[in-house]
């Protein structure tokens, strides 16, 4: 699945990121690297951006940005 398909409160482990090099570098430096567990916290009223919990921080992404991140769902709270 891709990160934008998460339900609110659901966690997933990042498998791969298929973004352009510039976007990928940005995502990496915010802690969004493969093997990281992230959790969808909120979605802004018009359906984006999305807010994720990433390594003890809060990061917001647009849908198109979240779509570049491949992840597999995990059970609650194995924080990465």
């Amino acid at each position, binding site marked *: 699945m891709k990160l934008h398909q998460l339900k609110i409160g659901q966690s997933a482990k990042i498998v791969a990121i298929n973004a352009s090099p510039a*976007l990928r570098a940005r995502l990496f430096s915010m802690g969004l690297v493969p093997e990281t567990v992230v959790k969808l916290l909120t979605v802004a009223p018009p359906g984006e951006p999305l807010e994720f919990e990433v390594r003890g921080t809060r990061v917001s992404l647009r849908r198109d940005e979240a779509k570049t991140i491949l992840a597999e769902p995990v059970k609650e709270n194995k924080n990465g």
Partner: protein
Amino acid sequence: MANAKQSTTETLLIGVAGNPNTGKTTLFNALTGMRLKTGNWPGVTVERIEGRLTHKDKTLTLVDLPGIYGLTADSEDERIARDFLLHEQPSAVLVVADSTNLERNLYLVLMLLEMEQKVVLALNMWDEAQKAGIRIDTETLSGLLGVEVVPTVATRKEGVEKLKDALIRTIEKPPPKTPDVYPKEVTQFLDGFCETLPEGAGAGARFMASLYLGGDIEAPVEKTTLTRYQEEFKKRFGKEAAVYFAEHRFSWCHGVASEVVKSVLPPSARFALTDKLDSIFINRLLGIPILAGVLYFVFWFIFTLGDPLVSYVDDFFSWLGGVVSEAVGSPQWLASLLGDGIIGGVGAVLVFVPLLILLYLIFSALEDCGYLARGAFLIDRIMHFFKLHGRSFIPMFLGFGCSIPGILATRTLTNRRDRLLTILAVPFASCSARLPVYALFIAAFFPNHKATVLFALYAIGIVMGLLSALLIGRLLFPREEAPLVMELPPYRLPSPRVVFATAWQRTLIFVKKAGTIILGVTVLIWALASLPPGVEYASEKSLAGRLGKAVAPVFEPAGFGSWQASVALLTGILAKEAVVSTMGVLYTGEEVEEEEAEEELTPHLHRHFTPLSAFAFLLMTLLYIPCVAAVGAIRREAGWRWAIFTAVYTLFVGWLVATLFYQIASLFA
């Protein structure tokens, strides 16, 4: 500023780096006591702030690097930091980290160590970490990193002296050993790749090699060589280099953090308050109404509180100008130069100071407490439609009050593309100085459609601003993405001392940097309107009048080809409301009080304008060159080239829209 007689002692350069929202600038100010020197980074328009610090007979020059999360990206901010480290070779780098979130902050520390920099780590917001039940074993951390670690609370200046000691000690030691993050085969592979690079295997070469291999930045080697190494890397280590390095770096950070950080409270404690507040502030139903309320408050705070202060300053300078003119008496040109030109020009700069202080106060407070990021989060969807960032919204909104606070507020945007495009869009939001012009013409030509015409002007302004951002964005930055990827920091209570200090510091910088151009253009326009000696101000025989006559035919197709209209527009560059007073002088031959402008000018306007050309003239007033102070603000935020571009672009758009309107409307009329 403070470099007069210190050239005998050697000054040591220190870079101050850190993630955004770590209190880096606060700590920087606490260390340097705000004796600052500002300039720009080479080739870019990001401000470079330096401060000095003398400790134990050593003078250190601290350079505040842009807030960054890493050093790998090809973004302006990370490039600045990288170039600084590589080319200016600082004696040490102070990294300011947020103690409540060590893991992510270590990522930057690790890269600096990989670059073989001498690092001192300040664990800032130490008090907050304590409160959240986070305990950090600084000794073990220091051992693992090989650098000195100092807990600090920048807002209360705690730990600052220890930090100074640590800096002095670190400068004298050799750089720490680079941590073992990758297996030996990988470092050997990097060394092999380094040999193909022109810079060879110097300090930090492996780190740069990892960036080239990752495709993060352009490599100084043949493309085929690079591809060969990249493919070889993937074959041997199973992953693309960029992914491999990012993964290993973060797993190292995670390892170190797990070893030294102990939580005595559940990890959610740190976000307990933030979660509670977010459930209100970014609530699906309440979020937008609250944002509207906050924006209204910001507007009220800056303009309702500021406007009376602005008129005091304005009145003071008119009074002073009058007194000086009278005191000088003759020759009349000199009296006028001093009174109207120079004192008027100084007044034109200082008149904005109350607005700026208020803007910076409320802005620093909103930024520091974390709300600004939430506002951007809520509004991003709409701004993204015009390829702008969520944070572009607030500057544009402020532009309705006055372009200058709006332009200066674009500082909140970290991406250069977003910042430049927002700066371009802000002046199109109709500022309050344009109202007197609208009021005059609307009363004269559209007395029965006041609200409609006014609304149309405001709407056209904002639409032109957003469309300009979209169009110019496509033209000038065709391939650049403008991702959102934004951190939502925890809510924090801003420190009043820091907020006041920031407001004051930024206001001073504005006066210094934008002041020159505002003063210069004010004197220039004074000269045009008053020379040759003896002419009436801005009259037909003045240089301005002659210029107006020469230019007038250009505006013929827009319906207002009289030389008076051109001269009024020329003086309107000083401040848009000057259009009214200039028309007063030119049409009636004497100065007209603002309150009487409507009554006295209406018959004259009817002789020179039709309703159609009047509306075209209003469109021109709305859109053409923002006032000189706004251009000065653009120069301060984005540099000369962008300031000139904006002036020329808006002039053209104003002319084009006015002409198109007049020509098309004339067909139907």
